[in-house]
């Protein structure tokens, strides 16, 4: 059985990172690596996977309130109980002296945990993308880490007016990047992986799927037979680009294979 079984924690703080982005902080001394996630149980509501945006003892996860569960999480007060399972999943790895780390939308929550430690050991470019400036967050954490910050918004309200993959292309064209790390919407992730392959740069991409068990048995998060919860969430770019499902299919909660 997994060592990281269900335990109760208290919400320490609910932080509003931007008009539409929230972070919940809680204490947990279990070691976690960048890119790993936990299953967060809000009693009486639901249990959902959350990437850790803070991996130290003062842990945290960051989200946009879109559904019933995330809205209820955003409304919590300090002291509220949460159930936590995990630390689950594999992690981002620094393999070169210069990394391009890309976060799209709430995917920024996952990559920030890599930007900070990797920036102290390597030259890091961090490209953040969002639909609009109100949905951007953690720019300050990027700057304080020493990484070079690049920003793109779909509506041009901050940084490059357009897709973050435009920024990725430019940076890859200018050379000197040894590896790509990314998390974000699947279309952006696929776009980034395609660029990575085009320029011959190895990539680690964190994929999101609907998850139930988190421990590799229910098959809900299967991506071509790899389980996002246990084998992922970080996958090699070549595996993803050669798979049938990446950027195309996911399993719905009832197990039907539907388009992403």
């Amino acid at each position, binding site marked *: 059985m*997994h060592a990281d*079984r269900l335990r109760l924690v208290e919400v320490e703080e609910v932080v509003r990172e931007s008009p539409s982005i929230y972070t919940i902080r809680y204490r947990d001394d279990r070691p976690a690596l960048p890119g790993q996630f936990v299953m967060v149980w809000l*009693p009486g509501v639901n249990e959902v996977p959350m990437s850790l945006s803070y991996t130290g003892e003062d842990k945290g996860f960051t989200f946009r309130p879109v559904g019933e569960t995330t809205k209820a999480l955003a409304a919590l007060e300090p002291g509220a109980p949460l159930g936590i399972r995990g630390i689950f999943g594999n992690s981002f790895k620094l393999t070169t002296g210069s990394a391009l780390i890309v976060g799209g939308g709430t995917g920024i929550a996952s990559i920030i945990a890599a930007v900070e430690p990797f920036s102290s050991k390597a030259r890091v470019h961090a490209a953040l993308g969002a639909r609009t400036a109100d949905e951007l967050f953690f720019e300050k954490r990027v700057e304080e880490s020493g990484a070079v910050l690049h920003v793109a918004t779909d509506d041009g309200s901050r940084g490059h007016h357009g897709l973050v993959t435009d920024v990725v292309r430019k940076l890859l064209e200018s050379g000197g990047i040894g590896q790509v790390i990314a998390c974000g919407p699947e279309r952006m992730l696929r776009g980034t992986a395609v660029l990575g392959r085009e320029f011959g740069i190895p990539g680690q991409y964190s994929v999101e799927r609907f998850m*139930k*068990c988190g421990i590799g*048995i229910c*098959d809900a998060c299967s991506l071509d037979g790899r389980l996002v919860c246990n084998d992922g969430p970080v996958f090699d770019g070549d595996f993803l680009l050669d798979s049938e499902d990446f950027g195309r299919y996911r*399993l719905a909660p009832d197990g039907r294979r539907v388009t992403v």
Partner: protein
Amino acid sequence: MSVPDTGTAVGTLKFRNPLLLASGILGESAASMVRVYNSGAAGVVTKSIGSESRPGYRNPTVFEFGSGMLNAMGLPNPGIVDFGEVVRKTRASGVPTIASIFGSSPAEFAALAASMQEYGADAVELNLSCPHVEGFGAEIGSTPAMVGEVVKTVRDSVSLPIWAKMTPNVSDVAALAGAAEDAGADAIVAINTVKGMAISAKLRMPVLSHSVGGMSGRAVKYVGLRSVYEISGRCGLPVVGVGGISCGEDVAEYLMAGASAVQVGTAVSEGGPGVFGRIAGELSSFMSSEGFSSIREMVGIARR
């Protein structure tokens, strides 16, 4: 000494070793089932499939404890129409595929079995034993009369082998198996999960969203062994043992209790699909060191 032969058979179905994937574990996508087979399993049992799609219960749907886990997934499945592609693909990859089905009436079971036969499944496993969904599973399969009626109706509509999966949450599991045998089943599968629940003392509430679930893993092995032992003593059909198997010696125990094959589920959460290769290797080593050259020599030896 020569390498022992781990091949076995359940009725007319032959398997390269006694290890099958248990229903409900990684049995929703063809790619996962093919991976399980390539990792050392001899065959797979699919997730339980019903007439209509069901999303299943809300999370939490699983709760792990020291020697096992509880789950109440709520029979999530894409429905029999959509699942055809999954069975066909799995089968086309050469994986012996047993299709698990659940219904609320004998006629519904029969219709589902007929579809699975058309898709090319090697056998159907009747889920007469899920402990956590009202109107299905154990609620259909807890009396010999009901088990007999379902099996007979399915028998009248399909020719492929019928495996009847038993609930341990009854006083006489062997009587259920006897009814399945009399009605024309080809094999008995035992056991499904043991009905249970987890409560958070601090939160003063059940953990699983459905409150009640099914217990699996190491903690239930001894219930499974006892059930297989009682069933194989009462009925002449091949038995497939399930419950808490996580190493080669566990498999040997089930074989000795009377099983011809086994299913592994919860152990997949510990080492991924690779557990099948590991357990198969351990079984082979056990056979070598104990002087068994075939599976058949072990089946039922504890009751002779």
